[in-house]
């Protein structure tokens, strides 16, 4: 619930793989590229470490958007992890569409360790999309909220 006059600040969870995207975020930081502080990064060993449950759990606990970042297909540190992640996430997001969750709240993006600019651009874009969609009311624990 936003106080009058205060603009909506979404809560965004970004799962970043240790080898590419997390390093990409690091590069964005050390290159002094700005991206919104609403993005909370969780470092995972590989994009395929992301269990579908993590994503649903993040939403349940109040996230407004979830983005998964990994190495570009073909560049995975573990050779094939992101290929499996790609199939899983496609199916999971398709299922979320199916149960009526707005489409823009989930995203997969491939960011390499050298793409600090892409990382900051992606996050800026994603935060804008979520601002447009507004607060996540369909997911999450509704019991103790007004």
């Amino acid at each position: 619930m936003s106080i009058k006059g205060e603009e909506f600040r979404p809560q965004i969870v970004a799962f970043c793989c240790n080898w590419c995207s997390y390093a990409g975020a690091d590069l964005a930081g050390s290159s002094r590229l700005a991206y919104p502080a609403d993005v909370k990064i969780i470092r995972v060993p590989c994009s395929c470490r992301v269990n579908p449950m993590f994503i649903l759990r993040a939403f349940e606990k109040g996230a407004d958007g979830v983005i998964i970042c990994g190495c570009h297909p073909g560049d995975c540190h573990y050779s094939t992890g992101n290929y499996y992640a790609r199939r899983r996430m496609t199916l999971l997001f398709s299922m979320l569409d199916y149960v009526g969750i707005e489409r823009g709240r989930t995203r997969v993006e491939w960011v390499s360790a050298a793409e600090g600019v892409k990382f900051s651009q992606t996050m800026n874009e994603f935060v804008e999309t979520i601002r447009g969609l507004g607060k996540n009311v369909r997911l999450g624990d509704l019991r103790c909220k007004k």
Partner: protein
Amino acid sequence: MQEIISRLEELFAEGKINRVLGWKKGDLPYNPEPAYFESAEALKDFVYDGFCGANLSKYFIQGSAFEGVTAILLKPCDTYSFNQLIKEHRVDREKAYIIGVGCKGKLNVEAIKAMGIKGITDIKGAEIDGDCKELTVETLYGDKIVAYKDAMLERCHVCKGKEHMVYDELLLESADTLDGDRFAGVEAIEAMSPEEKFEFFRKELSKCIRCNACRNVCPACSCRKCVFDSNKFDSEQKANVDPFNESMFHIIRAFHVAGRCTDCGECSRVCPQGIPLHLFNRKFIKDINEYYGDFIAGENAEEKGPLTNFTLDDMEASERR
């Protein structure tokens, strides 16, 4: 049915099998239950009729631990699940003597009750030897005639076919029951707006009482330790559950069997609340077929499943329809 019993007695006499995994009479005329028969004498309780919808494949995980050979009776659609369990090394094929039994569509007593028929005392016409066209439902208020097709389980209307995928011998005739489009239900939901979809699933899933029957019956759900039994997942009781928790349970349950689900329809059959759970599984099956090529889980015991496989040029998540 007598044909099956005499054949089983023969197998017992020849010493080929040590026990049978089949169905026995339940306490009501319409609820036969899965059972092990240890001897030819025990077969007097054996039954196989239109109400034997239960898929026995999963029981064979336990059956694989027994000594000797167990004869297992499988309907055509059950053999897909059995194949899938062989592929996952959950059952021991060597210990199974698979008798593929014919199927003329399986019945759902809830469908009969939904027609407003109350006080059922007996149901005639569900015998597998009959022509399975008409049921005579004897009630406290007189007899009622019901068409066999109208009382069938949803899954039989979209039958995968009457061919057994794995068997040692075949018994009894089958009859074709396919008369619906398997993905029609999924497509109808896909055509709705996000608000309608959300409302639809809220309405259906709020009925869930978290009895876990769908999980326990599913032949693809065979983990020794289930994620939903963890106390870290705080929805093991209905009282703890918030609205999204229910959806989460069903999404995760379907996701865990995605690519392995044979669409046997057991989840929807056992749900005491009548939630159409197959809609989740079929959505995954439909997506997999569309995005990664047609795949029928359990068709054989060798092919890699779609989620344990990949190609270099799979579509991106953002390209989904």
